[in-house]
């Protein structure tokens, strides 16, 4: 189905008012020459530049004007007749009407028959009067929209009657980006960088730290020679017993190593009294 209003193929589309245009002489077919003025007028009403219409509703609206009554009083029956006559005429003129127009014609023919026949009490759905009323409503609504659209376009429009500032002053748009970085971010970034270094060489550059691995190795080596209870302090490596910092580190590491070896069942650990020196010996076989 075409997307636009039906256009019949007679020359360029005419969109300007009046929508009703008499058929040009050469288009009049033999046998259709009007005899009387009355007939001729009727023909002028009916023979219409279809391309000037925006669909069947628009056509109906135009036809309804010939009744010269308020749309609310329009005779739908008469309108249906006019429309059907128009379609007949178009057919006679071999004007091809778009499907929209034919659907409307069929519906109007149906409506006409319903309006003429006595109402069928069995019939379901809307009554013929309701359908006719709805059609009248649609026509009136379309007419109303047409009127307000003319009112709208007739208003004082910007650039026509009303004007904006001709030389708007430029607003200097400075988009300031406030970069967010707190001291915390800075410190965190630095810490991240430094700890990345820290983990690689972790223990190696710690001159005053005696690690548990070192202590384990040392105690494991020495324990074989220790048959009797010996003070833990004696296991501290040379050079680690004078400086308090180094002694603390070595003592802690050695103690942790002996605990580990005790857990493995390699040695025994004893403390005779609170704060008494820790002594260790190889576990008897």
């Amino acid at each position, binding site marked *: *189905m*075409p*997307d*636009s*209003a039906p256009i019949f193929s007679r020359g360029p589309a005419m*969109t300007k008012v009046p929508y009703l245009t008499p058929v040009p002489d050469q288009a009049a077919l033999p046998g259709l020459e009007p005899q009387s003025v009355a007939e001729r007028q009727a023909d002028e009403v009916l023979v219409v530049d279809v391309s000037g219409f*925006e*669909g*069947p*509703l*628009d056509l*109906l609206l135009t036809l309804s004007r010939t009744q010269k009554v308020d749309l609310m009083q329009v005779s739908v029956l008469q309108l249906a007749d006019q429309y059907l006559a128009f379609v007949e005429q178009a057919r006679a003129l071999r004007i091809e009407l778009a499907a*929209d127009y034919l*659907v*409307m014609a069929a*519906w109007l023919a149906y409506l006409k028959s319903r309006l003429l026949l006595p109402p069928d009490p069995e019939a379901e*759905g*809307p*009554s013929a009067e*309701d*359908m006719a*009323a*709805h*059609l*009248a*409503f*649609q026509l*009136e*609504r*379309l007419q*109303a*929209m*047409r*009127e*307000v*659209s*003319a*009112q*709208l*376009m007739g*208003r*004082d*429009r*910007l*650039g*026509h*009657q*009303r*004007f*904006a*500032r*001709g030389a*708007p*002053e430029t*607003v200097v748009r400075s988009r300031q980006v406030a970069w967010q970085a707190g001291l915390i971010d800075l410190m965190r970034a630095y810490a991240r960088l430094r700890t990345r270094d820290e983990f690689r060489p972790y223990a190696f550059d710690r001159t005053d730290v005696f690690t548990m691995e070192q202590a384990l190795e040392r105690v494991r080596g020495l324990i074989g020679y220790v048959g009797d209870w010996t003070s833990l302090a004696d296991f501290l490596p040379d050079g680690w017993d004078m400086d308090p910092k180094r002694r603390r580190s070595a003592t802690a590491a050695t103690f942790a190593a002996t605990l580990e070896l005790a857990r493995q069942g390699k040695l025994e650990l004893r403390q005779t009294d609170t704060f008494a020196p820790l002594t260790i010996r190889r576990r008897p076989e």
Partner: protein
Amino acid sequence: MTETDLQRFPPPPMDQQERMVEAVLFAAAEPMSLREITQRLPVGCDAPEALQALRARYDGRGVQLLRVGDAWAFRTAADLGFLMQEQTVESRRLSRAATETLAIIAYHQPVTRAEIEEIRGVAVNRGTLDQLIELEWVRVGRRRQTPGRPVTFVVTETFLDHFGLESARDLPGLAELRAAGLLESRPPGDAPLFPAHTDADDDETGQPGVPAEDLFEDE
């Protein structure tokens, strides 16, 4: 903004605020929303009050302060349009289809394409809507919460500005049309369906029975 800030920087006196709003709006070609105006003023200013004072001041002048939806703009008085003929924008004449479609959208908004077609009794040419959207008079609104969730169309602030309307409620004849029931999809006394325009490949099953009360509520 804290109390302290307000005390440290008291807003300028109202006559100064009015001058500021005047300067800001005079410099702008496009309407400015209340929010935009407020943002440009020093902290603590009362833009609505300044706008009221300014509007009164320009009442009857050659330039008027107009409200456009949520925005404000200075525009020349319409009665002096004849002086500006040189500046008149020769806009492309809108087709009848376009002006009718525009009116239908303005008066029935938010309205679906199917509803527009139902009112006009003919398919809406894609180009017609495109043109209205391109003019920035119409934009796509929220989808209708009905089967197919069809998009709706509404008019814009640019539309209001162009036609000199404070809001869509000020459309000419709106009240009369509403009173006459012509903004409904059915005649007042309820009614049947009508074959009218049925576009087979149109999946916008817009529901023509939407109550008109909520028109204009959301834009």
